[in-house]
């Protein structure tokens, strides 16, 4: 009798534990799913809205359009300025592509120098890198503008692209130094014994190991430059040279009246497309890159 009671009690305890675990799991997943909905539903709703008629956009919470109408996209592509979205896309890429190349080269060389060599003033220079990392850029803006004005390079892409040739994107320098530290120095030593000079060591031995980190740098540069608004806003003044971000803002202001919402939403979504494609085709580089940079901060 007592044994049976004991067994029953044990059984009840077990049930209780299972129940508690199940409730906990439900609760956790509940939170995760709720947050995911809050995070993603606005995007979904907007995608739906881009196919809706203007009247339908603001009449329903449900994201699915009653029927798919592609005219917002056709109209959006024409923008309403004298250029199509294709033109602005091209402008954006004229900034993004050189910038990515410049960042990768200059940042890799600088990080290599800091991570693998001793030289006079190294400590001071490294602390300057860290200081620049924390420096509010806002302080640099007015003199930079004046400097490019003196060079006669306002309304060109030079102010947006050229500084990257000089490793001004210190965030990546810092990130790559962290990665370099994770590579055993034996690798350099044996390359040296094999007769590599330091540049050959970097290119043939270290860069292949660093590839994921370098790809992270390139991808982040791509995203941030695609998104950059302040830079072109300050330096680019002729419509012909506007990148997509400024063109979007301009069409929003131009059609800011009471209609054409679906067109602007469609344009915005098309504008996001390259970033979305790049993100999904390389998401592990984003997440790994950013994790490593933070860990040793």
């Amino acid at each position: 009798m007592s044994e049976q009671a004991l067994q029953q009690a044990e059984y009840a305890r077990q049930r209780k534990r299972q129940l508690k675990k199940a409730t906990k799991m439900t609760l956790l997943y509940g939170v995760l799913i709720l947050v995911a909905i809050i995070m993603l539903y606005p995007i979904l709703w907007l995608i739906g809205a881009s196919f809706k008629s203007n009247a339908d956009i603001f009449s329903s919470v449900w994201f699915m359009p009653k029927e798919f109408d592609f005219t917002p996209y056709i109209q959006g592509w024409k923008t309403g300025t004298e250029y199509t979205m294709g033109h602005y896309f091209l402008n954006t890429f004229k900034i993004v592509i050189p910038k990515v190349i410049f960042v990768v080269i200059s940042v890799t060389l600088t990080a290599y120098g800091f991570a693998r060599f001793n030289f006079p003033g190294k400590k001071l220079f490294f602390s300057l890198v860290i200081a620049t990392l924390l420096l509010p850029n806002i302080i640099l803006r007015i003199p930079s503008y004046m400097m490019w004005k003196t060079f006669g390079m306002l309304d060109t892409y030079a102010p947006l692209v050229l500084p990257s040739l000089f490793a001004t994107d210190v965030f990546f320098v810092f990130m790559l130094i962290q990665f370099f530290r994770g590579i055993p120095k034996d690798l350099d030593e044996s390359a040296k014994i094999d007769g590599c000079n330091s540049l050959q060591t970097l290119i043939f031995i270290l860069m292949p190991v660093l590839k994921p980190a370098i790809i992270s740098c390139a991808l982040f540069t791509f995203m941030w430059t695609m998104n950059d608004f302040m830079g072109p806003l300050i330096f680019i003044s002729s419509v012909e040279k506007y990148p997509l971000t400024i063109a979007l803002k301009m069409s929003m202001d131009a059609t800011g009246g009471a209609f054409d919402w679906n067109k602007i939403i469609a344009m915005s979504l098309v504008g996001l497309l390259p970033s979305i494609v790049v993100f999904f085709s390389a998401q592990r580089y984003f997440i790994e890159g950013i994790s490593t940079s933070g860990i040793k901060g």
Partner: protein
Amino acid sequence: MKKTRKASFSKDRYIGLLYIAPWLIGFLVFTLYPIVASFYLSFTEYDLLSAPTWVGLQNFKELFKDKEFIKALTVTAKYVIFEVPLKLAFSLFIAFILNMNLKGINFFRTAYYIPSILGSNVAIAILWKFIFSTDGLVNQVLGVLHMNPISWFGQANPAMFTIILLRVWEFGSTMVIFLAALKEVPGELYEAAEVDGSSKLRNFFTITLPMITPVLFFNFVMQLVHAFQEFNAPYLVTNGGPMKGTYLLPMLIYDNTFKYYNMGYASAMSWILFIIIMAFTMITFRSSKYWVFYNDNGGEE
């Protein structure tokens, strides 16, 4: 052996310098020079057309009497006070849940990360305007819940709320950094605590939080520096309105620079903002020895 190493070291002494040379030039031209120039400009009156004229401390004196500046400063403070802790707390909370070895983590991690990748895009700011417009998604949801619609951009506080929410919505990258840190916390610590009968909630405060303070510190400083310089969200979503309720200091600086060409005055403002940011960063750094726990005895980094 030692001798030869030393010899080769001195021969290589300048190779490193050669590698960092691009950065050094960049630093001098695109960082150091602008800082010095902006410091000088803050003591001048300058409209880009004629040469700057020295006015001493006048810009700074005017600033402290300038109601628009004081207002922008207050609004910026309000933004930072809410945005930074909210974003950090939310990122940490979600990272904590994601760290629990649940199934399907990768899906959620990606889902949460997407907004932070797209978030700074102009397109998202435009879309945000639609979501919070009078008949936008949020008010429609409120309608479904039988609540009164809110005029989000009609009053200062709701407008401020929308831009704070936009930035909190982009919590993905902060979260990923937290998540990486949480994974580094040794599991034995929790096992030991469990033996002692410590609750999960207590573990969070006695084990998890102390162990990740270096990363918390990193995230806090980064978010602080960013928040004080926020420009895109108010510029694109609320345009500083209504009644300058979201007119953050960087917007005021921008307008003074590129609309009114008060270069000297705007430089003085940037310097005040710069000093405020630096002060907060310094306080955080100084205080870090009391609350940041380094596992490996610090280190130079």
